[in-house]
Structure formats: structure tokens, C-alpha cells
């Protein structure tokens, strides 16, 4: 139950990060999701990513829509402000929050119903605008809280728990994010923490819209044979194009690698991503090639994962709008109110 706080007690030898915090300091209250839910693994990956990045928890705001996935922000980062908003409308609430204070990190958590069905419009427009955020879709192809209806990402031909077959075409959020101009696009699997944690870290460091489509099987309603979102199915069809060893900090990078097997990607903030190539010839800097690669492999029944696209020169909404560095919520009368004398001039011009 969410109102049951986790005990603060922990082992004295738990490792701490640069802020002196343990990973327990990045947790939230006890999850109320089903035991074994993929979403809880994603929450754990977020906790680990933030811990490893030495992120002060209160400098991150977590926002979500409605649904199982959107409940999860209660279960991580208990010292962060959270906002469980309206079904399908997290992107607009997050956009507004982001405009008010560009100095925080914004984590948007959504599901496939929340994003691909009711929220498709807001998903598209937030990406178009380049809102500086991490946008994670915990994608299980099904509505959990309302007990097992197909969502818009459910594959055509996949079977629900009651045995009926989905006749509608699926929405591929990766293809859309690429088309809409997201500057960081990744797909991962809740069951592959080694892949997911570095992707979340890199997404947090990315300035611009970082979109992660995370396959996250629903243990209760979409984990049977005939489903294309079950643990078994996703594992069997997972084709990673690369493996991200996220490197933060500005220290010189000393790693051994075979020439051509690894690429170093500089982020805006000076951190570096170490990207190990798994699929020969896959170039994550080529948007059009990425779109074509993903579509080809999807057609072949594969689930392509990894860092699918990154734009090193990303720009975000704050830049587009040329907003001042000081958070707008910190400006006072002095900066905001043009004052009495100006008003007199305005009056004079209206006579």
C-alpha cells in the first residue's frame, strides 16, 4: 500500500554515492503493483540511475498521467516532488512545469495507453517542441487497471488473456518519436537492467526530449503465450543494436576497445557515452537510417533495442523560446512588473 512507508532502517555497509546517499535514499513508498510487474523493475532502474549519477533527489520532478505505469512515481524518489496528473496529459503538465523552472530535471512516466491511446497528441507535440525531459513509456500493450483491454501498441494478431485477437495496427512509438524529431530515442526491456540503467542515465544527461520506449510485460494480463509483450516473447525477439556503457564526469576516459567496436559520444554537459556496437553498421546518428532499420526489423518480428538515435547538437524548448537562465518562478515584481511610469505612457498612447 502506498501509505505504508518503507522502513528507513538499512544495512550500515550500503554503498554511498558522492552525495553520501545510499540507493535507499532514492526509493519511494512500497509499490502496490502486482508482484513481478515489469514496471517495478523500471522503477528500480530509475533509482539506480539517479543514485549512480549522484543526483540530489529534490532537483528532479517526476510527472505521470494515469494508469499502472503512472502510479510508479510514488514508488521511487520519495524526496522528489511528484505529479500524477490527468490520463494522457502528462506531457502538457510537464511542459508547463519545465517552463516555470528549467533548472530541474524532469522525468515523465507514462504507459502505452496513456501515451499511444488517449495521449497520442500530447506525446507528439511535446516531442515536436523539444521539451527537455526524459519520457519513459512503460509499454505492456494492455490496460492493467481496467483489467486487460488492448492498448494502441498491442501488435496486430496478438491475443489477449480472454483469447480474442487484436485486429488493429499497432502504433510504433519509436517510429513516431524519430519522425517527430526526438533527439534521443531508445528502446529497452524492463527485464534487462544492464541495458536500461545506462540508457536512463544518458537520457537524464541529454538536453532535449529523450524518449525511452521500455517493453514492460504485464504479469497479470499480458504474459501468456499468444501475447507479443510477454517476458518470454520479448526475450526471444530482443535484438540490441548496441550496448551503452554510460560514462559520466569529465575525467579522461581510459578504456580498452577494439577499433571500430566502440564509439565515444560527447553530451552537451561534457559527459561522455561509451557506445558498444552490436549490430554491424548501425549508426545511431542517422535519423532516417534508424527509422528504416527499426521498421525493417519490426516487420521481421524483432524488437530492436538499444540507443537507436542521438543528436549531439540537440536544442531544447528553453533555447527555442530564448528564456532567461533564472527560473521564471524565481522572478519577482522588480523584474516582472513594468511599473507605474510605463503605464502612464501606455495610457497616453491610448488617447
Amino acid at each position, binding site marked *: 500500500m502506498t501509505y505504508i512507508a518503507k522502513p528507513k532502517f538499512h544495512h550500515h555497509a550500503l554503498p554511498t554515492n558522492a552525495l553520501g546517499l545510499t540507493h535507499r535514499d532514492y526509493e519511494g513508498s512500497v509499490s502496490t503493483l502486482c508482484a513481478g510487474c515489469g514496471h517495478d523493475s523500471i522503477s528500480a532502474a530509475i533509482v539506480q540511475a539517479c543514485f549512480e549519477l549522484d543526483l540530489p533527489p529534490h532537483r528532479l520532478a517526476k*510527472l505521470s498521467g494515469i494508469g499502472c505505469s503512472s502510479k510508479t512515481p510514488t514508488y521511487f524518489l520519495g524526496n522528489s516532488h511528484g505529479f500524477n496528473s490527468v490520463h494522457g496529459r502528462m506531457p502538457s503538465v510537464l511542459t*508547463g512545469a519545465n517552463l516555470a523552472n528549467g533548472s530541474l530535471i524532469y522525468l515523465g512516466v507514462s504507459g502505452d495507453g496513456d501515451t499511444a491511446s488517449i495521449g497520442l497528441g500530447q506525446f507528439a507535440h511535446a516531442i515536436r517542441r523539444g521539451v527537455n525531459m526524459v519520457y519513459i513509456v512503460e509499454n505492456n500493450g494492455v490496460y492493467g487497471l481496467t483489467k486487460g483491454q488492448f492498448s494502441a501498441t498491442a501488435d496486430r494478431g496478438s491475443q489477449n488473456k480472454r483469447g480474442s485477437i487484436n485486429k488493429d495496427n499497432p502504433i510504433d512509438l519509436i517510429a513516431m518519436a524519430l519522425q517527430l524529431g526526438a533527439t534521443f530515442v531508445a528502446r529497452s526491456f524492463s527485464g534487462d537492467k544492464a541495458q536500461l540503467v545506462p540508457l536512463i542515465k544518458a537520457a537524464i544527461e541529454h538536453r532535449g526530449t529523450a524518449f525511452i520506449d521500455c517493453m514492460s510485460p504485464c504479469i497479470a494480463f499480458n504474459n501468456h503465450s499468444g501475447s507479443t509483450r510477454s517476458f518470454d516473447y520479448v526475450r526471444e525477439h530482443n535484438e540490441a543494436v548496441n550496448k551503452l556503457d554510460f560514462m559520466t564526469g569529465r575525467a579522461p576516459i581510459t578504456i580498452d576497445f577494439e577499433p571500430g567496436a566502440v564509439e565515444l559520444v560527447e553530451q552537451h554537459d561534457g559527459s561522455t557515452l561509451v557506445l558498444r556496437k552490436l549490430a554491424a553498421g548501425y549508426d545511431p546518428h542517422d535519423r532516417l537510417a534508424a527509422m528504416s532499420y527499426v521498421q525493417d526489423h519490426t516487420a521481421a518480428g524483432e524488437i530492436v533495442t538499444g540507443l537507436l538515435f542521438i543528436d549531439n547538437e540537440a536544442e531544447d524548448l528553453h533555447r527555442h523560446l530564448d528564456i532567461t537562465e533564472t527560473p521564471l518562478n524565481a522572478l519577482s515584481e522588480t523584474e*516582472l512588473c513594468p511599473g507605474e511610469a510605463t503605464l502612464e505612457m501606455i495610457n497616453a498612447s491610448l488617447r
Partner: protein
Amino acid sequence: MPLPRINDFVVRFANINGSGSASANELFARAILRMGVPIAPRNIFPSNIQGLPTWYEVRVSEKGHLGARGGADLMVAMNPQTWAKDVASVEQGGYVFYDSSRTRPTAELREDVTFIGMPLTEICNRQYSDARQRQLLKNIVYVGALTALLDIDAEETVRLVREQFKSKEKLVASNIEALYIGRNYALEHLSCPIGLQVKRANAAGDRILIDGNSAAALGAVYGGATVCAWYPITPSSSLPEAFIRYCTRYRVDSETGKNLFAIIQAEDELASIGMVIGAAWNGARAFTATSGPGLSLMQEFLGLAYFAEVPAVIFDVQRGGPSTGMPTRTQQSDILSAAYASHGDTKHVLLFPDNPTEAFEFGALAFDLADRLQTPVFVMLDLDIGMNQWLCRPFAWDDSRLYDRGKVMTAADLDAGKDFGRYLDVDGDGIPYRTYPGTHPTRGSFFTRGSTRDRYARYTEDGGAYVDNMQRLLRKFETAKTLVPQPLRRNARMPTRYGVIYYGSTHPAMTEAIEGLAAAGHHLDTLRVRAFPFSDEVAEFVTSHDLVFVVEQNRDGQLRTLLVNECDLDPANLIPILHYDGTPITAREITHSIADRLDVSNVTPLRKVGS
């Protein structure tokens, strides 16, 4: 008999949308204002870019009656499509000024009005070779002719042209030339002046002429709004557009050149209000502007903001509903859908400005109220206020005024060990404390949600905690009563059992009607309601009169419903006076409706008839 009228008449221009008449007509209106005579210009325009009929009306009133009057004393009939209707709408003894390049069939001509023909098209075709110039300058030519016909100071008109085009010497010259072509033709060929005349006066005072949408936008600038998210919809679009204009001028950091504002044209009204709520949740002052259909789309989010207690400011520039309704006509028909916006039990704070000056004042105040009350605040404009220019009191601001950011706990408060419960009523006024995200590393964070929670913002499905919270929201609404603008009462010259309640753009028509009614021996006290929730004075006003007329611009008497519902009043005492054809309400109509009822009932209150 042709009407002889000095500084008291209505001129109506019948034009074709997109013909460039708007700026010429405004030039005409402003020239009269420059002569010290108050004016009330109004646009009656179609939902169209080009081709459909459009009218511009200028009421000239030295007495300062600035509501719509109805009828026209001079029709400037420039649109053949509407010729017959336009001629028919002229008052007895009035005038029709028309383009005689094409003669009119005499059968259509009324005998009780004076027709003044001028071959405008011929003159312009002779004068100009370019088709667009022929069209645009024809408008200026007729303004020139009108200055002669109405005895308007030509120099004031010329000065206005110079101010308008400033550095564009070519335009100044061609416009002034066109003005004199019209003026000289009229002086030579027409009998000038006619019975309607403008005489220099000193009745405009220091008043300013501005539209309500611009005024409200300026109020938002002065009120400290930094985030605006909007979606274009008539008649509200010019409000955010004015905000953009004012911000570009007054809100750019002079040192860095960076913007101290963020404006987003959203993908729809849901996103607009979502962004506003997100920004306000994060401590910025944020607003959106919309009209009826947009308000319908925002309902779910408004419930969230009410229940999760997030500030938001919504400028609702009302138009004719329901559905697409009359998108370019005025009404006060969103009162109930704003007051009770969203599912479940909700109530929202509404402000009713009566003109652009109050739109400015309430526009700024709305942000203080939203922050103080941590709830959505609606500024209920309408198309008449929003899109027409009104002559009104100049704007005022006191530089010592500070923004009221409401109850916000700081890092220092939290370090000092203050008990933070996001929904904890520590002061007994129903208003809890909030924190902005990012305030403190270990204290003061909370989870905002639209589902039930306890006083410390923890999720719960406990009915007791739910009721506790809903009751506190009612206490908060009681507090709101004391913070919103109070109603303004004007007593009749003598004691009376009759009262009138009205609000918003009805004000000028109501003021004029009260004078007319008093002259006819009907005395009424008036109360102009300026906000919801209603302060106690509103119910007292109703109970201290036998009959109270509630004058509004909608079909169903929405404010009356709100009065009955919220103040537990006897509906029999509240007589609706309703006008909802999309035109602004007129003093004539109010006067007739009220006088008829008072004469007929003469005057037994319905309550007593029933008993």
C-alpha cells in the same frame, strides 16, 4: 423631419469583410474622440476572412452613454448585399450615405430618411489606377466626406493619419490626399453639414480607448504572469497575441536580451490548461485564454486543479453558444460551465470585469487570488468587452504593490521545523501551505494527485479523509468570498422596493437604462456583481427588495440560477431580463423590459401573489 442631433447619434458602417474598411472606420471614430466627444465603437463581424457582410458602429454620446443603443441615425451603406436591411434599420428621420456610382431602385428608398449619394467608385476609379488602392482609399475618401457632412475637424483627422503611419511618408500623403478628395467633394456637391453634427466638447476627460483583450493581457503582464499557453479561438485570440506584444516590449531582460516569459501556442485547449497547471504547480504565474468550446475541453483539468489545489488563471472571452454557436457574437453564457467546471462537486472563483479597465485590474488581481486560494480563477470577459474598443478610465498601478504569492513554505521554514502537510488547514481559512518542487533536499516534497489523499498528501481511499478534504475546500471557498472584488451598489434617488442585479458588459447599458427608468418614474437600486463566490451583500440586496431583476446576456438566466443555488434565494423574487441574440444588450431593451413588467405587475411581488 431630418434629425437634428449634436454629439448624440449612432453612425453605422455597412462594409464587406476584408475590404480594408476597419482602419478607415476607426479613423473616423478617433477623430470624434479627439474633439473631446465620447464614443463607443463596436464591430459586428462574421466568422469569415473575406466577402461576408461586416458592420462597424460608432455611438457618439457627449453624455457618455457607451452601451450599444440599437438602430442607426446615419448608415454608411457600402455593402450592396445588405442594402435593403441596412436602409430598413435606420431610425426615422435618419440618413443613408451611399455610393451613387450605381443608382439604387427608387422603390427601395424610404421616404422618412435622407439619402446622400456620392459617386465613390467613379471618383476612385478616376483617381487611382491600382485596384487595391481604389478599394482601400475609397474607405478614406468616404471618411473625408463624412468629416464634411458631420462637421468633424479635418485637422484632427489629418493628425491621426500622421500618427498612424508615422515614418511612412508615402502612406501619409496618399491618405491625406484621399481624405481631402472626399471632404472637398462633399463640401462642393452635398449639403453640409447635415443634422447630425459633432461639436468640440470636453467630455472625454483623461479616458483611454482600448479593447478588453489587450487590457486583460496588460493586466497579466503587470500581475506577473510568466507562462502563457493558449490555443487560437475567437474571440479570445487577440488576448494572448497582445500578451506577446507587451512581453516583447516590456519583458525582455535589458542586459541579457533574454525573455522573462514563455508563451506556447499549444495543440489544443487541453494542452493549454495542462501547461498552465504544470507551470503554476511549479510556482510560476500562468494563464490561458479561451472561449466556450475551449472551456468545455478544459473541464477534466479544471477539476484536477480544484481538487489538487493548483493555481490557474483562465480568461474566458465568452461568445454565443452552445457548440460552435455564434463564434463572432457576444454572450454571457459560460457562467455556469465555469462556476461548476468539471465532474464531481466543484466550485470555481469567477471575476466579472465590466470594461477594459476592470479587465486590466482583474487580470492582474486574478494571479494574486489564484496563488492565495491555490485554485483556478476565471476572468469572465465577453466578445463585446474583449474585441471592441471601449472608452474607459485610464489604467493605474501603485509601484509599492507586491504580488501575493500565497502560502508557500520555503527551505528556511522547513529547516525551522514547521509541520508541512500539503492539505493541512493550519490557519482555519481552508488554505493549506504548498512547496515548490526543488525547495529542500529532504523536507517538503509531496505527491500531487487528483485522487483522494490525506492531509499529508498520502494516497488514501478512506471516506473520512475524503469528506474532511471536501469540507475544507468549502471553507476555502468561504474565505474566497472575502478576497474577491465586492459588488458595487447604487441606490435610487428615492427608497424603492425594486432592485436590479447585473454584471460585466451590461454595465453601460444598465446605467443608461436606470436613468431612463427613473425619468419615467421607475426607481430601482442596482447591484453590480463583480465576482463569484457572492459576498453576503448580494443575498442581502435580494432579500431587502420585493423584486429584483437579474439582467444578463444568455437564454437561461445563468447568474440567476447561481444566485438561487448558492444563496438559497426564492426564485420568485428574481425576475430574469434576458438578451441573447448575439448583439450587445441595449439600454432601450432593458428599459422596455423592466418598465413593462413594473407597469403590468404594478406591482405585486410574485411571492405575494402565490401566498
